[in-house]
């Protein structure tokens, strides 16, 4: 299982050193940080972009199979048997689910075992001495799950018993220190690798989790579609009323991304001044369109003008123009911001 981080890169390489044929598998949940916001935001476009899992596969000289698990993953996010971490991150259930999927994949493709970069004590939920056996058991992979970086701290697995892997050439890493991994990376000649540990999933992000919880609360049900979770990554989110929310583009790249949703949402943008594209999510009550227009004006270059002209459009194609006074900053309660 190749995440794109250092540990999975090393784990695969340790096994390959023993002459084992390895192919990589990587899962896409929709919550993966991997490049999305960089792709959207114009100011980030100059930053080098690479998919770290693909990059790892290239370093290793192996194939990489990227699997879309967006729909199936919903149940993991919505109903985690083992609960959430400090935010809406269901790390233990996530790991069990991914190993289960990997196990099904190896059975379908005639592979013998699964390799992960897990290290005992590395992460608070999914990489603990008491939870790592749970992953092996609940995923169904059992002793076909090998963790080469900490294998000597764990019971023997099938590949070790069968002699496919020499246990003596596996490792006994533990804890949060990265030094053993960095030393091993250096011994393999890996000098450039993704910075590891924790930053790969939006669900571990507090602000993102707040927005996701708000989405569920406002809809009265815990559910989401891919577009929902993509939109939570973009723009400034304000909820002036329980029933509706504004998503305000913060710069040109975000405005362009939000444009793709104009046929699905009531939307608005200033025409007398430069400013954001704003999507209105939810049911608009009396006065809400004008309030949204005043907020749109507030986030435009006309924020200090006496009047800003805002054009609003709906999914039905109807267009209307509103001349509004920009809402003063002090009139925007802090709790509107998600």
């Amino acid at each position, binding site marked *: 299982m190749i995440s794109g981080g250092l540990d999975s890169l090393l784990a695969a390489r340790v096994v390959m050193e023993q002459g084992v044929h390895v192919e990589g598998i990587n899962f*896409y949940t929709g919550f*993966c940080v*991997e*490049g*999305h916001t*960089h*792709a*959207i935001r114009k100011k980030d*476009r100059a930053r*080098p*972009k*690479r*998919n770290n*899992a*693909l*990059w790892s*596969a*290239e370093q290793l000289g*192996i*194939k*990489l*199979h*990227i*699997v*879309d698990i967006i729909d199936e993953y919903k149940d993991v996010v919505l109903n985690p048997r083992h609960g959430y971490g400090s935010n809406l991150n269901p790390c233990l259930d996530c790991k069990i689910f991914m190993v289960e999927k990997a196990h099904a994949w190896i059975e379908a493709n005639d592979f013998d075992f699964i390799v992960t970069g897990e290290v005992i004590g590395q992460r608070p939920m999914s990489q603990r001495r008491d939870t790592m056996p749970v992953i092996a058991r609940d995923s169904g992979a059992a002793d076909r799950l090998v963790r080469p970086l900490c294998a000597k701290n764990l019971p023997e697995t099938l590949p070790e018993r069968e002699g496919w892997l020499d246990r003596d050439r596996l490792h006994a890493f533990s804890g949060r220190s990265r030094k053993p991994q960095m030393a091993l990376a250096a011994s393999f000649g890996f000098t450039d690798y993704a910075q590891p540990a924790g930053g790969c999933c939006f669900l571990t992000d507090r602000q993102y989790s707040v927005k996701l919880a708000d989405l569920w609360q406002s809809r009265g049900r815990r559910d989401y579609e891919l577009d929902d979770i*993509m939109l939570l990554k973009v723009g400034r989110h304000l909820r002036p009323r329980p029933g509706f929310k504004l998503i305000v583009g913060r710069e040109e790249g975000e405005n*362009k991304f939000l444009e*793709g949703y104009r046929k699905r949402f009531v939307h608005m943008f200033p025409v007398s001044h430069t400013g954001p594209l704003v999507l209105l999510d939810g049911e608009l009550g009396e006065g809400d369109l004008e309030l949204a227009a005043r907020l749109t004006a507030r986030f435009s270059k006309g924020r200090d003008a006496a009047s800003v002209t805002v054009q609003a459009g709906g999914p039905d194609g109807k267009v209307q123009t509103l001349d509004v006074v920009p809402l003063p900053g002090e009139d925007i309660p802090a709790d509107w911001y998600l």
Partner: protein
Amino acid sequence: MTDTFLDARRLLCPLPVIRTQDAVQKLRHGQTLRVLCSDPGVLHDIPAWCRVHGHEVLDIQEAEDEIAIRILVCNPD
């Protein structure tokens, strides 16, 4: 031979790569796939995916906000 066409516009990476992977799996050795994308991340990711799987990128064309990548499927066995 006519290219098979894949529209991956408005998808953000890695989805264009996944859709490319799925489309290539349905093609035979020597067939070509033309993928149309809007995420500039594909400029790196689709060629990288092709390299690790042994497929060949024949051509990349960039226009404003759109990128077209032509792939030759190489599955000799």
